């Protein structure tokens, strides 16, 4: 059974989330501050971290960024809760390495869908081919590592799934809508294209920083594509 950490300074919300998780029959730890979350994460690695953005002492974005710098947590699925609904906040959160987000107040089916998609994503990656290769870009699904021009980088879980999906469909331009369905498992017609854009940006930063080669191409008016050489 999946174990979820939920972090929110608002006790009322935290308890509500707890009731939802309980109803969905997940194991959970409810934590009311980032500092406590960090301490607990030292002891135990959950299957999913639900993180509120605005918190005193250390906000969710900072915590997320810090976790992503730690090799132990780079593949930990992180779901943001945000009360501001401000696109800038969300983009900052996604840039920090979160996998997905929901905006408060959310409805039960929405939260349920996001949680299960993230958990599924973590599980399913273990199946299928362990490694993919296109040109000098290689993806190791065992380690969630990509190797671009002999430079190995560690990917987050969602980055891995996104890159894998793109590499599994080479020479196809994939629209944000398509990728939201395939990678994030949003129902058709929902989800935020910003989510895709932010992850593509993060992926590019990792793959293309040293190699200075463009692996993921933007096809204007359509979407994103990885081409075979």
């Amino acid at each position: 059974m999946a174990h979820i950490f939920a972090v929110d300074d608002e006790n009322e919300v935290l308890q509500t989330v707890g009731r939802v998780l309980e109803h969905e029959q997940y194991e959970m730890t409810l934590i009311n501050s980032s500092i406590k979350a960090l301490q607990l994460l030292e002891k135990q690695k959950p299957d999913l971290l639900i993180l509120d953005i605005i918190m005193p002492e250390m906000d969710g974005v900072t915590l997320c960024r810090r976790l992503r710098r730690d090799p132990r947590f780079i593949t930990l699925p992180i779901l943001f809760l945000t009360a501001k609904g401000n696109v800038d906040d969300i983009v900052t959160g996604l840039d920090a390495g979160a996998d997905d987000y929901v905006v408060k107040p959310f409805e039960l089916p929405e939260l349920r869908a996001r949680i299960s998609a993230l958990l599924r994503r973590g599980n399913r990656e273990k199946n299928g081919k362990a490694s993919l290769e296109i040109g000098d870009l290689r993806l190791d699904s065992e380690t969630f590592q990509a190797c671009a021009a002999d430079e190995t980088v560690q990917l987050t879980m969602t980055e891995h799934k996104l890159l894998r999906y793109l590499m599994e469909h080479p020479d196809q331009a994939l629209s944000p809508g398509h990728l939201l369905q395939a990678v994030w498992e949003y129902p058709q017609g929902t989800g935020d294209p910003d989510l895709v854009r932010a992850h593509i940006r993060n992926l590019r930063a990792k793959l293309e920083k040293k190699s200075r080669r463009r692996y993921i191409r933007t096809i204007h008016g359509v979407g994103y594509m990885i081409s075979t050489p």
Partner: protein
Amino acid sequence: MTRLLVAAGNYDITQTVKTALSGTYYELISAFSHRDALFMFRTQTPDAVLVDAAMFDRNTGERTLAVLSRELHPVALIGYTSTPAVLHSAQNAVDHSRVMFIDQLDRAPLMKALSEALRIPLPTIEGLDDERDQDTAPKSLSIWRDDEIQMLFTLSRSLLEVLDLSEVLHRVVQAARHIADAEEAVLFMPQGDSGQLTIQAEVGAADGGSVSRGRQTDPSASHVYQTGESILIAAGFPGKYKQTANTNALLYVPVSVKDRRIAVLGVINRQKKTIFNRRHQDLLEQLAADAGIAIENARVHGMNLQRTNDLSALVNASQQINSSLSLETAMINICDQVNLLLNCGRVDVFHWNSSQDLPVVWARSQRAVWRVGYAPELSLKSHPGLAAGLRNKVQLISAFRPENPEEKEYLQSLGAASLVTISVVFDGQPLGLVLAYYVKAQETPPSLDVIHRAQAIGVELLSQQLHSGDAYHRAEFRAADEVNQLLKSDWVEFALLGQDRRSLLRLISSGTATWLEETYSDSALNTFGGSLQALREHKFIRASANGDTSTLGAQAMLDAVNGRSMLGVPMTLQGETIGFILIVDTERTRAFNERETQLAMGVAAQAATAIKNAELIRQLKVSYQELQTAQERLVGAARLSAMGELAGAVAHQVNNPLTTIVLDAELLLLKTTFDEKSREALEAILRSGKRAAAVVRRLLTTVHKERTSSVQRVNVVETIEETLFLIRAHVQREGIEVRSEVEVHGIPLMIAVREDLNDLWLNLLLNAHDALRGRKRGAMGVVVHDRHADDHVEVVVWDNGIGIPPENLDLIFEPFFTTKPAGEGTGLGLHICRQILDRLGGSVRVESRVGTGSRFIVRLPLVKE
């Protein structure tokens, strides 16, 4: 009686002495200048002379007092001055024993000084009378009669006092007739540029003494003028000059000033048998000498006076022109002032933009009258609209309506958008038309009572034209002004139906129009490149119907403006010709002379400055308005930004509790079984929670967000699809149909911040969605067309919802305007749309019908490929 000569240039002195000595035994005679004093002294033999000590000979600089004290004929001499310095220097200049000095003119001291002076023994000189005859008096004087001499002196002096030229000329001929005892006297002077001798003053002519000026000279006068020799002709007198018909005797003498001939003075006997002799010639020549000086004086004075008048007129004009900072008023003032100064019929102000070859007309003022023979004709055959005007009481012709192709060109050539014709009927016969022109297009013809009044004025003016020829006065222009006011027209014309009934003659044109917003360039000017070039090079152009013209083009231009004379002066500012003023006289053939040209140039210079000032003010006003708009936007933006921060804070505070309300209510509904009432209550809690959540979410999406994103090339269709993608499921869930049609060639790219476009579409789509709330068979959608002709894309966001009442159409883009129940709408969505469009250089217009739906039509500029 003791004769006292008072010699003083200052008339006050003469008057004071006269008053002081009234009732005494002194007989007063006066002289007003040095020369005058010597004449009077030598001819009137006064017993005593009172001289203004300050009077002196203008030629030698010597004091009159000193000259008189040396005269052979000694008299009692009194010098008067109230100024010590003058007294001192005068005393040094004369023999003390001969002259007394006084410094006041009261009766007592004056009488005392006179009696003392008269007691001074006078030196006696032998042979006084002979010497006087031989040396001092002009020889010719010796044969003059006393009364003639008296006459001449009086005349000479009176002439010098007169400064009005025509009065001087009149007096000269009067005097000439008198001293020669002639029937007629005449004065010829060269006239105009040609210098032709014409009669300038005349007395005793056969027509009863009325002066027929401008009559051409006879050859005798020309000869006198050219040679400077007098001509004396008498009946039967042998000589090379033929007697003119009806002339019994004739005497012409030249009038000169400083060896320069300025006129010819003559006396003529036609009926009278008396002939003129050498004595008459002497007298007339003497008169001519004085007359020359007098005429020159008067002429110089007249010129000074005119210069002063011109200057004050110019100052006045410039004050008028500069009195308003509105360009339109400045234009009208310029036209009026030029019209006033030069008394012409039409004034046009043209403006050159640096980019344009052809100048545009800025203003035209007309007070033009054409004589019947010269009136511009409008053929009824080529103007069917005007021909119809004769049959109809009133009609409105518009340059922009297809039914009047013939009149379109005519109106455009005049810079008019509309023309109202009113037929003028007299005794059941069509007399002509009242033509009222409008710069701005008119929608409706004038009312009936106005038409009737205009018709009455038309009958008055046009029938007068028929009966009394060309007797036009101010009354006509007043009547025309009245018609302009009644019809609210810019200018009005009165056109007479020609005798042949095939054409209209435009006899009167009156009114002032400006074209500051419209661009009106008189295409007729196109062909006069030479004249325009001359004006551009700061030269003036001149033309008149008698062929006196500065350039060939100017002559053609004169024809084009239906003028008899024309003057064009450039308006120059800082070395650049910004335009020109065209001055047209429609009635008279006249050569605009040097003076008039200078006046016009003076006004043009003022006009250029006034125009520049008015333009600067206009620019200032525009920038002020821009500043104000910017400020309002800034205030609005600040309000929105505060609103955004507030919204963020509120959202955070509200969304957390709402999360609990919504989620827990949902959980409860899932987990527990309730009785019907409890379930309803719980569902109500959930519904309200969701509604509150929707309000907060809406608030957040509509407040302006600080963008960090960069400006880039954005595919407009892509942003629309992204936004549709976002809302489609949500909207379709409510049973609303969402359609999109894209008809574009290639990828419509524009330079923008991507999120701006997303926000734009989101707000418009949410707005459409709101309009469909509670509607059955609701549908909304987006239609995209590209318009490659003008590099724009047009996006129509439509709905078949409730529609917008007309009175709200202007308000919907205002911030915080909402028709939704309090708490449901922020009133910011459409406002944000407009702000985004302002940033993107796009525009939006709305078509809406209540109950049918709305269309928001957005135009966005595309990147040129």
